[in-house]
């Protein structure tokens, strides 16, 4: 390679690769997965509603409740 090519390669390497690393770090820090367009499927599902049809046997029955 000519001297000019060697210098251009060195300058590009010193510029591009650190810039890419900094850009990646900034983007990763700025963007949360749910922030981005197209990430709707990552929204957390709403918590399941308790099924009131079945009594909750993990809690003590209220006073005066009928025995099952």
């Amino acid at each position, binding site marked *: *390679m*000519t*001297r*000019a*090519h*060697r210098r*251009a*390669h*060195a300058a*590009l*390497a*010193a510029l*591009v*690769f*650190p*810039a*890419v*690393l900094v*850009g*990646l*770090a900034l*983007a*990763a820090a*700025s*963007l949360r*997965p749910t*922030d*981005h*367009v*197209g*990430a709707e*499927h*990552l929204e957390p599902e709403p918590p399941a509603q308790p099924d009131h049809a079945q009594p909750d046997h993990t809690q003590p029955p209220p006073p005066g409740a009928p025995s099952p």
Partner: protein
Amino acid sequence: MTNAYRWVAWNRHKKIYDAALASLIALYLAAYIAITLLAAGPGARPDILLPTALIRALGSAAILLLHLILAIGPLHRLTPRVAPLLYNRRHLGVTMFLLALAHAAAATIYYGAFGPSPNPLFQVLFVGRDFASLHAFPYEFLGFVALAWLFLMAATSHDFWLHTLSPSLWKALHMGVYVAYALLVGHVALGAMADDPSRLTPALLGLGALALGVLHITAAVREVASDSAAPAPSSTPSPSTPAPDNDDPAAHPHWIRAADIADIPEARAKVVPIRCRERVAIFRHQGALHAVTNVCAHQAGPLGEGAIIDGCITCPWHGYQFRPHDGASPPPYTEKIATYNLRLQGRDVMLDTRPNPPGTPTPPLVIPADLDDSGPLFDPPQHLGPSATRPSPAENTP
């Protein structure tokens, strides 16, 4: 380099190279698609279908190949063992462009053809997107700009364009691969972060950038150190000045001690850096020494890392050849490189740092019999063997 051009001047090495490349890419695509579909599982990721997996496989193959392409140059400056890869690097570049093009076409059709806009490209790039916001930035735009640059590079990769544009302009255009690389990293990273909360892809891209950066900077530091340690001639008078006939260095300041005779093996060269000037390659061939510029007239390849094959200095990059005594390519080729004058002072090879005009016949420096201690015979690299060095007169090597 030739009086006629062909699309590809195939030889055995190029056929093996391209067959291996095609096989590896086919294997990679198949493995990527299979693993992606298996990992998605039935119902776990309903958005991952065969087209999605194919689009991602094509894109990831392209970015991986781009990393390999960018690594070959600095690796070759660190070790000449990479020369067989570098020999056909342009085919890697065109293959990478075709993979990226297939990825872009498939993604545009798949994601853009069924939206409200009748134009799939407009749909992908602009509908629901905001250039002023990182969150809604159309990362596809970065990919399309990079693809346009890669197209320019692929379309001008043939030697016809190298000669039409001139080597310096051609090289400047192709150094734009670094800009395309930065754009593609942005495209892939933003796209992946929109979909993958694990940050695995940005982390891998960061590792790739780190590895490439370390490789490039290591190679650059080595080159700069070599140039800095070089002797500097103290003046630059006309090249027509005759070689001095006395041994007083002060009497001829543009002559430098370049090497000991024993430093130069048969059919190979010693590369001599000269401060603020191009390097010079001093070759030994059949009991004589010849000095030429280290810069190949084709793509500025390092001639001194090549060898003398079939009586000609042969560039390690693409096999271009030049006669040692005058720097001219053998007929019917017309390329010429600069030659330099040499003289002997004891065992020291003295070099006149002023180049002769390209193609100037220069008398060889005959090594006296009592100093001729050349080593074993030279075995040329396989990729520069007789079938790969110089094509027949009507051929060229894109």
